[in-house]
């Protein structure tokens, strides 16, 4: 009940929204990452394209210079000395070319020795020197060109290499690549390779520097930064920001990851998960590679995702607040209707409780009665009632099983039924029986009522009772003996057994519902039947109200802060043999005299035989009033005055002075006297004193008897 409809609705909406948000966040993250990779690829390719053209231009210059001049070299092949002029011209005309030379096969010019290499070279100061490289010259590139490419009559770009000491001429050795074309003699046979060297530093310095600058700007503060390198078709590194790696080979798996002539791939390089954007340079077969750590790309995607998630959480919070605030108005009418219904029933319950009197509205000398019902928070099903009729007290206490609206309705029905039954039924078992059958026949609900119904004769103290599965009442400090009957409404054909007992004057009858005995404190300890019994015993002389209020206080003290889970109903009834007796003036009522007189005599400590004489006097006087006085009601009072018990008989009949009317002549034998007068004779014989007065239309006769 505590979790309201709006709260449940809110949580469900939020769960759905949360799932949607997680899915959205996942999709967004995946898509954003893809987009970022695409975007990075495009950006990097455009950077590469810029340098691609630069590189191609420089490579083309070398290529064109060699291709354009090879015919002149071939034309003048018969004149070795002219070769120097050609070489010098090529270098002078092409600033890109660091060195140009012709590698002739060994002993091609027998007069020039084994090795003849006419050469022109640009130095640091851009001055062109012409030289002949002689026999001491040897390097791998020359071997490759002469022994691999020349026989096949193929032109080629060599893989990068560091120039020889001899060429460096004391300067730092430069990284070079060489373009070479075969030179043919007059017979068309390849006899030499016409070569031009390109210093890679010139290109790489610019590109690597440019890219480093750009990356430094965009990826400031990142642990792993983007960089750029170039490899040739064999995987040899041509350009790299780390100069130590130049001319070394790239790991094979990285090379394999790049499949097309341009594009991107994701692979691990130097232990960093990276995206490689690459583009090949077609004439040389080189590949430009732009390496970007994935972190650098995805950092933005991740940041974006965090922002999205934060926004979603805020949205979720907003939805929660909105739901709590708005759904209450929309959805809670349903719950409110229910609450209203319960509230109204509680009010109805309260009114019904309020109509239950705490005590008898017409005080009786014989009865001291007090009742209290403390309802639990929810509407509940405790009930009690009492009703005075024909000098008898009809009372009941009951507890409807279950709680809530059905129990409250049931309780109202049961109480109404009891009220109706007690007006026409004189036996407790008959009342219970009728109620059980009525409920069993008319109700399909699985509700039943534990009940104790009692009828207490106020004159005699005789208690006629029937216990239908209720807590044992306590009578004079002892649990009342009860038969094991089913609760009312449990089984419509159950035969109930009634019981009788007799209260002694002054006995206290204490009834309660299990809300009392089962009241729990915070530690879930029950108040307990035994404690109820002990407390009733200890407070045996209290008035009914004192006992009920004391018990109520004790159970509240026991419960402390624990919530009351069940109704608590307490009913205390003390019976005292009445010292006043009101009866109808009929012979049917005359039996009520005996206990009244017996009680008065007992109170006065009168001897049994004297009590019998007093009884005879009173009984004869009352019988005379009934038989001759035409009275409707007779009231008797008993009082102890000194050594005498005084019984006052008050009737509303014709004036009738029984003190004056003793005419029986006792000297006549009893069987020969005229009828009548015998009663008055005994009245006079048995009483120790008689007086009569007529007041306000009432005969008042006092009979005195010595103790």
């Amino acid at each position, binding site marked *: 009940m505590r979790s309201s409809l709006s709260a449940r609705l809110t949580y469900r909406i939020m769960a759905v929204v949360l799932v949607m948000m997680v899915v959205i966040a996942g999709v967004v993250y995946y898509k954003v990452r893809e987009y970022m990779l695409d975007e990075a690829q495009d950006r990097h390719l455009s950077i590469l394209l810029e340098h691609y053209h630069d590189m191609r231009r420089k490579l083309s210059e070398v290529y064109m210079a060699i291709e354009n001049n090879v015919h002149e070299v071939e034309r003048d092949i018969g004149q070795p000395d002219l070769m120097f002029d050609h070489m010098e011209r090529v270098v002078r005309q092409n600033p890109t070319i660091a060195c140009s030379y012709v590698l002739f096969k060994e002993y091609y010019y027998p007069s020039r020795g084994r090795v003849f290499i006419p050469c022109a070279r640009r130095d640091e100061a851009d001055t062109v020197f012409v030289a002949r490289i002689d026999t001491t010259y040897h390097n791998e590139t020359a071997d490759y060109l002469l022994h691999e490419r020349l026989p096949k009559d193929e032109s080629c770009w060599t893989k990068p290499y560091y120039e020889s000491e001899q060429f460096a001429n004391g300067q730092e050795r430069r990284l070079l690549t060489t373009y070479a074309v075969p030179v043919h003699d007059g017979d068309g046979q390849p006899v030499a390779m016409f070569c031009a060297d390109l210093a890679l530093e010139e290109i790489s310095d610019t590109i690597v520097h440019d890219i480093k600058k750009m990356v430094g700007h965009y990826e400031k503060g990142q642990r792993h930064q983007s960089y750029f390198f170039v490899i040739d078709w064999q995987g040899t590194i041509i350009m790299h920001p780390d100069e130590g790696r130049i001319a070394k080979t790239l790991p094979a798996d990285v090379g394999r990851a790049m499949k097309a002539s341009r594009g991107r791939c994701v692979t691990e390089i130097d232990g960093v998960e990276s995206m490689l954007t690459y583009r090949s340079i077609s004439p040389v077969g080189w590949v430009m590679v732009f390496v970007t750590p994935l972190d650098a790309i995805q950092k933005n995607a991740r940041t974006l995702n965090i922002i999205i998630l934060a926004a979603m959480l805020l949205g979720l919070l907003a939805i929660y607040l909105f739901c709590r605030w708005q759904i209450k108005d929309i959805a809670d009418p349903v719950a409110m209707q229910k609450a209203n219904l319960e509230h109204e029933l509680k009010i109805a319950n309260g009114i019904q409780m309020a109509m239950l009197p705490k005590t008898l509205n017409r005080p009786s000398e014989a009865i001291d009665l007090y009742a209290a019902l403390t309802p639990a928070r929810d509407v509940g099903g405790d009930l009690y009632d009492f009703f005075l009729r024909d000098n008898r007290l009809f009372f009941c206490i009951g507890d409807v099983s279950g709680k809530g609206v059905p129990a409250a309705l049931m309780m109202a029905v049961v109480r109404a039924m009891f009220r109706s039954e007690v007006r026409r039924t004189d036996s407790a078992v008959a009342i219970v029986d009728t109620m059980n059958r009525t409920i069993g026949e008319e109700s399909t609900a699985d509700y039943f009522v534990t009940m104790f119904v009692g009828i207490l004769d106020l004159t005699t103290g005789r208690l006629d009772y029937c216990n239908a599965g209720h807590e044992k009442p306590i009578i004079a400090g002892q649990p009342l003996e009860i038969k094991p009957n089913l609760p009312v409404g449990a089984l419509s054909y159950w035969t109930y057994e009634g019981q009788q007992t007799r209260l002694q004057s002054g006995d206290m009858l204490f009834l309660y519902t299990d809300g009392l005995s089962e009241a729990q404190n915070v530690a879930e300890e029950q108040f307990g039947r035994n404690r109820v019994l002990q407390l009733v015993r200890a407070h045996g002389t209290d008035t009914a109200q004192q006992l009920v209020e004391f018990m109520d206080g004790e159970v509240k003290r026991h419960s402390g802060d624990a919530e009351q889970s069940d109704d608590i109903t307490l009913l205390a009834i003390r019976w005292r043999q009445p010292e006043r007796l009101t009866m109808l003036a009929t012979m049917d009522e005359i039996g009520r005299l005996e206990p009244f007189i017996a009680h008065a005599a007992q109170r006065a400590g009168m001897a049994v035989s004297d009590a019998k*004489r007093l009884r*005879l006097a009173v009984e004869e006087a009352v019988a005379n009033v009934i038989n001759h006085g035409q009275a409707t009601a007779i009231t008797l009072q008993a009082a102890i005055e000194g050594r005498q018990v005084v019984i006052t008989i008050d009737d509303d009949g014709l004036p009738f002075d029984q003190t004056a009317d003793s005419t029986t002549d006792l000297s006549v034998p009893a069987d020969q006297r005229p009828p009548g007068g*015998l009663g008055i004779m005994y009245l006079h014989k048995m009483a120790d004193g008689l007086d009569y007065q007529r007041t306000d239309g009432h005969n008042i006769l006092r009979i005195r008897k010595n103790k």
Partner: protein
Amino acid sequence: MFKITLSEQAGIENRSAEKLVATLVGDLDNAASTEAARGFEPVFERTDCDIVIDCTQLNYISSSGLRIFLNIYKHFHGHGHWVILKRMSDDIRVVLSLGGFLQLFHTED
């Protein structure tokens, strides 16, 4: 509470006739007198025997009870038979004595 039981008994002592025995238990007061009168009805059909009224457990008697006793006396005495009151308590004996009834009945302890 009042109860009456009737039974027959063979003659005893010097009387040869049969005897009716009426055993009374409880209080023969005004409230019980109607019931008592009804209980005694069968004895008024008998004219051939004495009657013993066993008062051992009779606790109390009022004038209406005495009227019944008187009617029984008149009936049996009229037919020449005895009415014997057996084992009356002192209280009952006093009531009968005060009303002058004791002389009408034979008593037996």
